[in-house]
């Protein structure tokens, strides 16, 4: 028998269980507000104490723990975003993981985990989340592990995490907002494996990651607006991936983002050699891109490729600024899955090959990007610290998260300035 081990060392709750046996249960606890460390010493104990719908309020300090929030409608909130730090110590897999509906994670920093800083997922068992367990001989079964509903990640800083900074998969109806991610050896932000996701990704900064923002197999109603994905090795990707459920990736709305200068050397390397790319679409389909500023990426502003037999098709770019890149758009799709129907209006130049956009309605010609020397990576634990990040204003009294996300009015979102959110980004401040 294949062993299909839980390779991800997902003993989060098992670990917790030594301290408090009910910590991973869905109930228990009766307090609507628990202070850490005022009432209990650890965030985990606070989650144990808090009632569903309650709040865990964390005072400044470094918390050497990993926290699983398996209780409905709980808010995990730091009193000071930069000074409340959940630290993985370079050896714990997770920072804060939400496996219940309606969880808010806000105003804190998560750093130095070996896998994920913040994770929201419906895929979990009594041992905690099971992202990437086994090696894909089996799949997420969405019937067995229905997506978590309603989540909010707001004003969270995730830095120096081994794989992903802030990650949601098998999750619907959520917001990732005004957050920051750096130093991820995979991607700073990752939204994956959902259909009719109803997820908003807005106002975030990703820098010094292998990839700034990644979407694998998250489709329809994923709205990505007003983010800064600059100063990574690759700015953002929209990809289909057979290793996970719900291929192909399709129909995201990407508006008003800054995706610039993605050839940052002082980051972990992108494991397949990615470098100098603004937006990569691999086997992604029917994505709508409006008024993004995609500039200064030395190899390509936009790169089209296939994922195995899944072609990049039907992606449309309208009124984007695509200047100052090695080429504006490149197509490197293999012959077995040729790109087609990818249209750029107004037409952008140069492209690879030169006639790539001549007729965007049919099959499109393919070229080869010139090889480049990619600089060696920096350890994720040694990537530069983020500049000071603003704390979240006191939200006052709030009810549970709503059933669906209120999306911004996209018509009002212009092409962003070249210095969008620059005050929050180290790479924009001459420290690169």
């Amino acid at each position: 028998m294949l062993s299909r081990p839980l390779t991800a060392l997902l003993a989060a709750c098992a670990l917790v269980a030594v301290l408090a046996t009910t910590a991973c249960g869905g109930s228990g606890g009766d307090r609507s507000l628990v202070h850490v460390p005022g009432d209990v010493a650890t965030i985990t104990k606070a989650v144990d104490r808090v009632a569903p719908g309650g709040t865990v309020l964390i005072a400044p300090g470094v918390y050497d723990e990993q926290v699983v929030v398996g209780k409905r409608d709980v808010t995990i909130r730091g009193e000071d975003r930069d000074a409340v730090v959940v630290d993985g110590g370079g050896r714990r897999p997770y920072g804060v993981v939400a496996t219940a509906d309606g969880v808010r994670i806000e105003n804190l920093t998560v750093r130095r985990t070996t896998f994920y800083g913040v994770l929201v997922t419906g895929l979990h068992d009594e041992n905690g989340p099971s992202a990437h367990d086994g090696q894909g001989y089996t799949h997420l079964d969405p019937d067995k592990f229905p997506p978590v509903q309603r989540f909010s990640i707001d004003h969270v800083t995730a830095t120096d995490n081994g794989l992903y900074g802030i990650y949601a998969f098998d999750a619907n109806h959520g917001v990732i907002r005004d957050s920051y991610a750096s130093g991820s050896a995979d991607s700073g932000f990752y939204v994956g494996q959902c259909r009719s996701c109803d997820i908003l990704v807005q106002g975030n900064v990703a820098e010094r990651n292998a990839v700034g923002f990644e979407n694998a197999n998250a489709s329809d109603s994923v709205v990505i607006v007003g983010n800064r994905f600059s100063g990574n090795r690759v700015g953002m990707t929209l990809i289909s991936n057979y290793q996970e459920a719900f291929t192909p990736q399709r129909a995201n709305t990407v508006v008003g983002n800054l995706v610039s200068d993605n050839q940052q050397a002082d980051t972990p390397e992108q494991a397949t050699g990615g470098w100098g790319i603004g937006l990569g679409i691999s086997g992604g389909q029917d994505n709508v891109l409006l008024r993004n500023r995609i500039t200064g990426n030395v190899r390509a502003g936009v790169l089209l490729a296939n994922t195995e037999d899944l072609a990049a098709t039907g992606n449309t770019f309208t009124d984007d600024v695509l200047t100052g890149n090695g080429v504006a758009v490149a197509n490197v799709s293999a012959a077995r899955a040729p790109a087609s129907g990818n249209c750029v209006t107004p037409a952008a130049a140069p492209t690879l090959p030169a006639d790539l956009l001549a007729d965007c309605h049919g099959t499109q010609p393919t070229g080869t990007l010139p090889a480049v020397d990619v600089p060696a990576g920096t350890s994720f634990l040694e990537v530069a610290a983020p500049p000071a990040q603003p704390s979240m204003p006191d939200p006052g009294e709030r009810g549970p998260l709503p059933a669906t996300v209120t999306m911004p009015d996209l018509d009002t979102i212009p092409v962003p300035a070249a210095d969008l959110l620059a005050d929050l980004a180290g790479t924009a401040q001459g420290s690169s």
Partner: protein
Amino acid sequence: MSDTPGISRRALLLGTGGVVAAAAVAAVGTAVTQGGPTTSTTTDRAPGVRATGRTQAGVARPATPQRQALHAVLRLGGGADPGPDLRSGLAAAGATILRLVSGPSDELPDGPGDLTIHVGLGPGPLAAIDPTLPAATAMPRFAGDDGIPAGRDDGDVLVALASSDGTALRPALDAVVASLPGATTLWAEHGFRGPGQGTIARNPLGYHDGIIVPEGDDELDENVWLAHGPLAGATVCVLRRLRLDRTRFAALAEGERDRVIGRHADGRPLSGGGPTAEVDLQAKTPEGAYLTPARSHARAAHPSFTGSALMLRRGYAFDRGPLADGTADAGLLFVCFAHDLETFVRTQLRLDETDDLMPFTTPTASGSFLVLPGFDAAHPLGHQLWA
């Protein structure tokens, strides 16, 4: 596949697993005479392998492949409609197989030993019977296929024989071919395997091969056998005769070789774990490089990237001596089984794009076949095709 202490598959391979392992190795050893002449008594022959049942022998049973094999690819005699002739020919071939494996015969005076013979049909005859049959469509051309000589990539019938006794193969093959009227041999390859337990043995590059395969009835049912309908118990076999540039591979530093494969020669994944551990596709160095290298064979071939079944691989080494240019016509006769043709096709297309092992291989023959469901005296070989 866990590394059970004491009797792990590695221990059996290396004979270091203590008393239990040593005994198992000795038992395997009795079926394989080393160099010396085979004796003519029947008593020391390997135990027989059941020929009848839901599936044909030699695909998944015996669990440890016999160390000698002969794969023959045939062209059927003329006739636009292979139907009636093929139907009776297959039935006759099946009867011959049952005769050969049931006891001493003219061809095999010492009896069959552990001889297995299975038969498959290529896309030509399958499409003529019914173009919607599994594997009735020919494979696409893969990288390097243009160099395959004519007649070596479009066979009609596969007859695959395996035995501990290499001398049993040719007489048995001739008898089976003779029962198929008008059939001629397009190509045939004698293959051999190193010692091993289960499907794991060293391949011609010196690496343990056959580590990650479906094992046990559940995994075989899920990945290898057609599950439903009249063809339940059939499977799709792909043969690729891959000449290997072993000299160039061996000239690489050991670490470089390991990075091409994604494992050490004894099977240990570069991502950690014992010799039968699965590779970890996500694990990275702190600097962001994959521990199972981005272009390693183990990553490239991994079924998760193509959403494929896990194929059963039971390949054999071949060696035909020097070519005109002095290099060896030697390598791996790659043999795999899966419940659809797409599993191989999608994987090979991916290998062509992302596998650093492929530049060391040259395809010299190729074929895909539907290995027919099992048969017995009452249910002739191939009768399900006309069900």
